[in-house]
């Protein structure tokens, strides 16, 4: 097999990896915030449900969650979904899982905010929405950036789990080539891809952190 052909196959897989990564972040970052609100809600049942949700998402393997999300529509609702649902299922499962982790990160960030910030805003006449979005959230983002970076790097590696639903991302592509050509080279190249991807992610987060360092 041509080296360039292998690279092309890996490249296609890489594209799928990036898609899973990007879509997961885009949806799970805001969803996590919503879930963290539920987790801190004054309404007891809401708090209980979100707490249970988070513990299930964090307490069971992501691989199992992928399978459940994929098969649930059929086994629970009797729905026949097209093959293309596989990719959607991967994204849904990743988003549900990562949102739970992000929710806990946001919660600890929000709870670490000094009460004086809320009180100053209240006395100045800010309403609840203004207080949260103008005063609290920007500071929370700065505080949670390090743990969010950790999760994001884990996500890059977790994308390989998409193989469970036969979505051919980079790792699956590498495994297939490796099997048919009996060489571990594609796996090594894939490893390099992951590494570089993560370097870029870490670098991006570092830049963001620097940007937010204009205040303390």
């Amino acid at each position, binding site marked *: 097999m041509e080296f360039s052909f292998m690279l092309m196959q890996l490249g296609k897989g890489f594209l799928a990896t990036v898609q899973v990564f990007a879509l997961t972040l885009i949806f799970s970052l805001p969803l996590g915030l919503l879930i963290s609100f539920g987790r801190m809600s004054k309404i007891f049942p809401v708090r209980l449900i979100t707490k249970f949700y988070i513990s299930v998402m964090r307490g069971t393997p992501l691989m199992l969650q992928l399978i459940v999300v994929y098969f649930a529509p059929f086994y629970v609702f009797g729905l026949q979904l097209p093959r293309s649902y596989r990719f959607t299922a991967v994204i849904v499962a990743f988003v549900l899982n990562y949102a739970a982790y992000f929710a806990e990160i946001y919660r600890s960030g929000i709870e670490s905010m*000094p009460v*004086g*910030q809320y*009180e*100053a805003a*209240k*006395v*100045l*006449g*800010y309403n609840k929405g*203004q207080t949260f979005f*103008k*005063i609290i959230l*920007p*500071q929370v983002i*700065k505080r949670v950036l390090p743990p969010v970076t950790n999760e994001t790097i884990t996500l890059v590696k977790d994308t390989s789990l998409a193989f469970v639903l036969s979505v051919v991302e980079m790792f699956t592509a590498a495994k297939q080539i490796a099997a048919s050509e009996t060489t571990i080279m594609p796996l090594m190249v894939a490893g390099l891809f992951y590494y570089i991807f993560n370097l870029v992610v870490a670098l991006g987060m570092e830049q963001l952190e620097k940007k937010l360092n*204009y*205040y*303390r």
Partner: protein
Amino acid sequence: MKILEINHMKKSFDDLEVIKDISLSVNEGEVLSIIGPSGSGKSTVLRCATMLEKMDGGELIYLGEHAAEMNNEGRSVYASKKDLKRIHKHFGLVFQSFNLFPHYSVLKNIIDAPMSVDKISRKEAEERAMALLKKLGLEDKKDAYPFQLSGGQQQRVSIARALALQPKILFFDEPTSALDPELTGEVLKVIKELAQDNMTMIIVTHEMQFAKELSDRIIFMEDGVIQGEGTPEDIFNTENERIKDFIGKFAG
């Protein structure tokens, strides 16, 4: 004209009765200082007056408008949200620990509330802010962030932030207690200048000399009640042993 009137304020935290029965009023342009031992409930009075805490009993009246009325049992009944929002604009509060917004520059700390709460234009808000910064000697700090300022400068910015909303009365809760001794002077000076401009103020302080020079009236609080009230002269020459003791400790 009475700017603030508090009648029979009561406040408990669980079983702890912190404010037992406090009544006081402040006229326009008057400076009232509240002194008293730690834990006597001074901060709680300010927090109830600024609606950071809800009082259990008593009335709270700003410029004749009831923020809270008393029902037959003397319990506080608060006005509607809409009314409270309007009444809120009458007062400002300066905290012991400044509570500036660390992610905003000095200028943004001062203009943001007038713009997003009172909806005034950026131009007007900036003009107001620059005039205040000039008055408080902080013109050159407008682009600095709070962490780059000394405690005294931060407290002056927080005073400017409160003044930018043009309150009718300003509350101070031990505005110099968090400062190194060499920095208290600059903050006290600013408050004195406000007094000369006839700003109506209620100041909780442990700075006895300052309270004596500045106040029209002084209230001595202990155990959730007012133990003594009068002009600085009255208070500093009182025969009341508790007040004498207390002042002695701080003057010494």
